[in-house]
Each structure stands twice: as structure tokens, then as C-alpha cells.
């Protein structure tokens, strides 16, 4: 019952402990960060069982019952996101042990990393809309600093751009929350949903929805608002790129958008149509922009824009099947995009370059990186039987079922373009003749290999999540929360004890 606040308390406590003692005790940052993410991963898996038993749990902070106090809510969607975030965060911290040894001030890195994790877990677990904003800012500000971690010219520029765009997004979100608060006089999401239902949405929802699309769209980097992402994500150290591209844009952008649109506002069909169009645009253009890139991390960043489009398309179709597909793709994208960014980090670690033109034939020297990268690439391109195939299949089938034939066709063809640029990445980096000066290249250290192999294993086994029992427990229980729409409020107030 009381494990919900631990998702926020553990990483916060670990972050402050690392910043206090990490400078003096050299081994502490690695040890504490890995212990922290490992325990969070185990707790998140435990929470799946708890949700199956109780349905939904509402935690009253300081025993103040909502709508007066702040509540933390653990339902299907929350535990789905918590599992995604914390499991991948664990593999990323495992990878960081060797990778971050190149940088000075590892303790600063872990402090910021854990603060960002605390912010993300807070966004996911909270049931209060202003609390959501606060945690969103914690995660976002930590990520601005992490993008600038190398403090070279390029990184500072990217971080500045990211900070400006991110702050703009936060102000739109805050403005939306202010308008909602002035209309409903409550900040609790369940209560807000009730009030909106009783009072009628009025004109305010019509005004707030575009603000939220702008704000969360900027955070999620869907197409017209994506400009910061291809700079920010490649500039960060590889574990952070994996964290940002794999998790942050999904938690701050997509999760928050879904939660508010489906469960609080209950927006109209037209809004979902707008989301779908935005999704298709970013899916297509992101893929085309990715083809031309030579910087491996930049290509992966554009690929993120494209894949976020798939998730948006699924959300926009808004049938239960499409939502399940979108959530499944969210999980899959989190695993293979983190894997691919970790691969790019391993290449940079060993060869010292990110330019595809200077690579080639790395398979002979870096077999583990090559193999895991191949699995990740094929999975993201939708090759059966890897995980990406199944989630894309569900989204496309849902589009056909909802009679959006054009969208389904576009989604299927973008998948082919995705395959094209990932084959280009594979060919130029890992196959063909060995690049100049790469004769002495060595494989990445053990912990980096372990993290990559584990993520690749999840990519291979991802399709197993479609087994009926697992699917009901993990993805369908999350999709049901969203499909319930305004029913969320009833369940929240029903499960307060």
C-alpha cells in the first residue's frame, strides 16, 4: 500500500546522498545509483501485482484526503509507465558505470540523473495536476543540465536551445493549468474531471486543449515542435540520450497528455483527429529527415520524432485497440531506442567518432555492439518476430478497423523508410570494409555489454507481452484506464479508504 511514495522518495534521497558524499567516496555514486534504480525496478514490478489485486490505489499524502490534499494514484497506466521507466533506468545506470568514467564529476551526473528519475516517477504517480507540473519541471530542469554535461560549445548551445523551448512548453502547460483551476476551483485531477462533467466543458476546455497540445507537444517533440530534439539528444552523454529519447519525451509529453486528455478533460473527437494528423506528419517527416543524417546520434534523434508519431497516431485513433497498440509501441520504443543510443555510445567510446562516414566493418572488432545494434535496428523497423513488428501491426490494424485507410497505408510505408535508414546505419557502421584507423578498436567494457544485451533480449522477447495473460495484466490494464475516460474520477474516489 505505502510503496507509492517510495518511487519519489528513493531517487530523491539517493540524489542528495550522492551529492553529499559522492565527491569523497569514489565508489558511492555508482553503487548508490545502481542500488536505487534496481530497487525501483523491483518495486515497479511488485506494483503490477498490487494493481492486479486491488484495481486502483490512492495514496493520501500526509493523510489529507483528496480533493483537499495531494494524492498519489497507482492504477494500470501508472504501473505500466513505472515499469517501463524504472527497468530501463536500471540498465542505463548499469551502462553508465563504465561509460561515465571518461567524464569528471561522476557524482554530479548521478545526482542530476536521479533527480530527473524522481521527477519522472512523480509525474507518473501523481493525481494532482499542479503536482504534475512541479515534477515535470524537476525532470525538465535536471535534463537541461544533463544535456550541457560535456560543457563544450556545441553542448551548451543545444542545452540553451532546449532550455528555451522547454521553458516555453512549461509556460503553456502552466497557463493551461491556471485556466482549468480558475474554472473548476480544484487541482485534483479526479475532482477536476467531476467538476468539468457537472459544469459542462464550456469554452474553457476549447481554449485549454490547444495550450496543452502546444506544451506537451513541445515536450514530446511531435513534428511542428520538434526543432530542439535533434540538437539536444545527440549532445548529451549517451546514457542521457537514451534516457531523454527513450523515456523523458514519453513521460513528460505523451503520458501527461494522455492522462489529461482522456481522464480529465475528456476531449472531443476533433482533438483526437488533430493528434492523429500531427502524429502522421511527424512520423513521415521525421523518417525522411533521418535518412540524410551522417551523425549516428542525430539519425537516432530524428528516428525518435518519427516513432513518437506512431504513438500519437495510436492515441489519435483512440479506440481501445489503438490505445493498447500505442502503449505497447511506447514500451517497445523505450527499449529499442535506449538500446540504439547505448550502442552509439559504445561506438563513440571505442572509436571516438559519431560520424557514419568514418566507420565501417566494426562487426569484426565489436561483435556484441554489432549484434545488439542489429536487433535494435530490425526491431524498430518492424521486422517480425521482434517487438517493434507487433506494436506497429496493432496500430495499423486499429487504423484499418477504424476505417482510417490512408493513415494505415502511410504508417506501413513509413516503416519501410525506417528500415531503409537503419539498414544504412548497419551497412556504414558495422558491415563492409574496416574504416581507416579503426584497426585497434576494442569492444566496450563488461557493464556496457551487459546493459546492451539485456535490452536486446527485451526487444526479442517483447512479442511475448502479447500472450493473453501478460497482455491483460500489463498493457490492457493500462489501456483500460484511458478508455474509461471520465470514469477515472469515479474509480479514484471509490478507492479512497
Amino acid at each position, binding site marked *: 500500500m*505505502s510503496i507509492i*511514495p517510495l518511487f519519489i*522518495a528513493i531517487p530523491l*534521497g539517493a540524489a542528495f546522498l550522492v551529492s*553529499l558524499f559522492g565527491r569523497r567516496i569514489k565508489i558511492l555514486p555508482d553503487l548508490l545509483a545502481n542500488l536505487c534504480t534496481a530497487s525501483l525496478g523491483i518495486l515497479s514490478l511488485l506494483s503490477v501485482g498490487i494493481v492486479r489485486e486491488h484495481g486502483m490505489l490512492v495514496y493520501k499524502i500526509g*493523510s489529507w484526503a483528496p480533493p483537499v490534499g495531494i494524492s498519489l494514484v497507482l492504477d494500470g497506466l501508472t504501473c505500466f509507465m513505472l515499469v517501463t521507466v524504472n527497468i530501463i533506468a536500471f540498465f542505463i545506470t548499469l551502462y553508465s558505470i563504465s561509460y561515465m568514467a571518461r567524464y569528471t564529476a561522476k557524482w554530479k551526473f548521478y545526482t542530476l540523473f536521479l533527480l530527473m528519475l524522481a521527477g519522472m516517477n512523480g509525474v507518473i504517480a501523481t493525481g494532482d495536476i499542479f503536482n504534475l507540473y512541479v515534477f515535470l519541471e524537476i525532470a525538465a530542469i535536471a535534463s537541461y543540465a544533463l544535456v550541457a554535461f560535456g560543457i563544450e560549445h556545441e553542448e551548451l548551445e543545444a542545452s540553451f536551445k532546449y532550455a528555451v523551448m522547454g521553458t516555453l512548453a512549461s509556460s503553456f502547460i502552466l497557463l493551461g493549468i491556471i485556466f482549468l483551476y480558475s474554472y473548476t476551483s480544484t487541482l485534483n485531477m479526479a475532482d477536476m474531471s467531476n467538476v468539468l462533467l457537472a459544469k459542462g466543458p464550456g469554452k474553457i476546455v476549447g481554449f485549454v486543449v490547444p495550450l496543452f497540445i502546444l506544451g506537451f507537444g513541445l515536450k514530446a517533440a511531435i513534428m511542428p515542435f520538434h526543432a530542439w530534439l535533434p540538437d539536444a539528444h545527440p549532445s548529451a552523454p549517451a546514457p542521457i540520450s537514451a534516457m531523454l529519447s527513450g523515456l523523458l519525451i514519453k513521460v513528460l509529453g505523451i503520458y501527461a497528455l494522455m492522462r489529461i486528455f482522456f481522464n480529465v478533460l475528456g476531449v472531443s473527437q476533433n482533438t483526437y483527429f488533430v493528434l492523429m494528423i500531427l502524429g502522421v506528419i511527424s512520423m513521415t517527416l521525421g523518417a525522411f529527415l533521418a535518412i540524410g543524417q551522417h551523425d549516428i546520434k542525430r539519425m537516432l534523434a530524428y528516428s525518435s520524432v518519427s516513432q513518437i508519431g506512431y504513438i500519437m497516431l495510436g492515441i489519435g485513433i483512440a479506440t481501445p485497440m489503438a490505445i493498447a497498440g500505442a502503449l505497447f509501441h511506447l514500451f517497445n520504443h523505450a527499449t529499442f531506442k535506449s538500446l540504439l543510443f547505448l550502442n552509439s555510445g559504445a561506438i563513440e567510446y571505442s572509436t571516438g567518432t559519431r560520424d557514419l562516414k568514418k566507420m565501417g566493418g566494426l562487426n569484426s572488432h565489436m561483435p556484441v555492439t554489432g549484434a545488439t545494434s542489429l536487433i535494435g535496428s530490425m526491431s524498430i523497423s518492424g521486422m517480425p518476430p521482434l517487438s517493434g513488428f507487433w506494436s506497429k501491426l496493432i496500430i495499423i490494424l486499429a487504423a484499418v478497423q477504424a476505417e482510417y485507410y490512408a493513415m494505415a497505408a502511410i504508417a506501413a510505408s513509413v516503416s519501410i523508410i525506417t528500415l531503409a535508414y537503419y539498414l544504412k546505419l548497419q551497412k556504414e557502421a558495422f558491415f563492409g570494409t574496416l574504416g581507416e584507423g579503426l584497426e585497434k578498436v576494442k569492444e566496450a567494457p563488461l557493464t556496457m555489454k551487459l546493459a546492451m544485451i539485456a535490452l536486446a533480449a527485451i526487444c526479442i522477447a517483447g512479442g511475448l507481452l502479447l500472450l493473453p495473460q501478460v497482455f491483460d495484466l500489463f498493457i490492457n490494464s493500462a489501456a483500460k484506464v484511458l478508455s474509461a475516460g471520465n470514469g477515472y474520477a469515479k474509480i479514484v474516489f471509490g478507492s479512497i479508504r
Partner: protein
Amino acid sequence: MKKTSKRGPREPGMTLIVKTITRLTVGLIFLYGVYIVVHGHLTPGGGFAGGLIIALSFIHLMLAFGKDLALKKFSKAAASIFESLGGILFLTIALLGFTGGYFFLNFIRKGRPFDLFSAGIIPLCNIAISLKVGAGLFAIFIALVFLQILKKEE
């Protein structure tokens, strides 16, 4: 600093008038900050505002006497330690609520309203926040000052 005037090497900081006034006021500013913090649950203000005023007293010192003296009183490492300590203290108070069954539970006796020792954990939270905010703001100010110096040396 190579700049020298006729009276020999220039002293860091501002003129004698500013220094004298600062010497008189800086303690009062600090005390006022502490007052705002400990009366946070009774009067307007609290940990954030009080921490800010405490940090301002050190920044005042730095502006009037130059960075060396202020850093001697409150070094960069101390700022970093106090900031983390504030965070940990706040989290510990929140976690101690678990003794009563809830995160952030106000588990201490509330006392009589408007007494200095009342409101349970709220004054303790204010003290933790003031440490975090005060040390954090001072650390940001130090960072800005050092950035300026680095630029000059280039």
C-alpha cells in the same frame, strides 16, 4: 588584478562608506532572515523567503567586501553541503511521517495555534527549505561570479 591606483594596490570591494554600512546591517539582515524562517508558520514568509534573505546577507557581504572575504565565511563546498543537507532533511521529515503511517504525515504534536512551538513538522520543514534555498541561491551567485572572472582571464 594588475590595476593599481596612486595609493598602492586597490582593495577589493566598494568604498569605505559602503563597507561601514554593510558591517552594521549585514548581521541584522541575517537575523531578519532567521526570524522569517522560524516564524514561517505564523506570519507571511517561510522557508523560501527566509532562505532567500539569509543568502542575500552573504551576497551583500560579497558585493561590499569582494568575493574572498565572503567565501572565507561561507565557502563553495559549504554551500554545496548545506544545500544537499537541506534536501535530505526535508525528505527525512517526510519519511518520518511513515511512523504514523503516512508519507509527509504531521506526526508531532501541533501545540497551541500562534505559539512559536506549534504546527508540528511545519517549522522543521521551513528550516530545511531555508537551508536548501539559501545555500542554493548563494551557490548560483558564486557560479555567476566565477564565470565572470574566467571570462576576464581569457
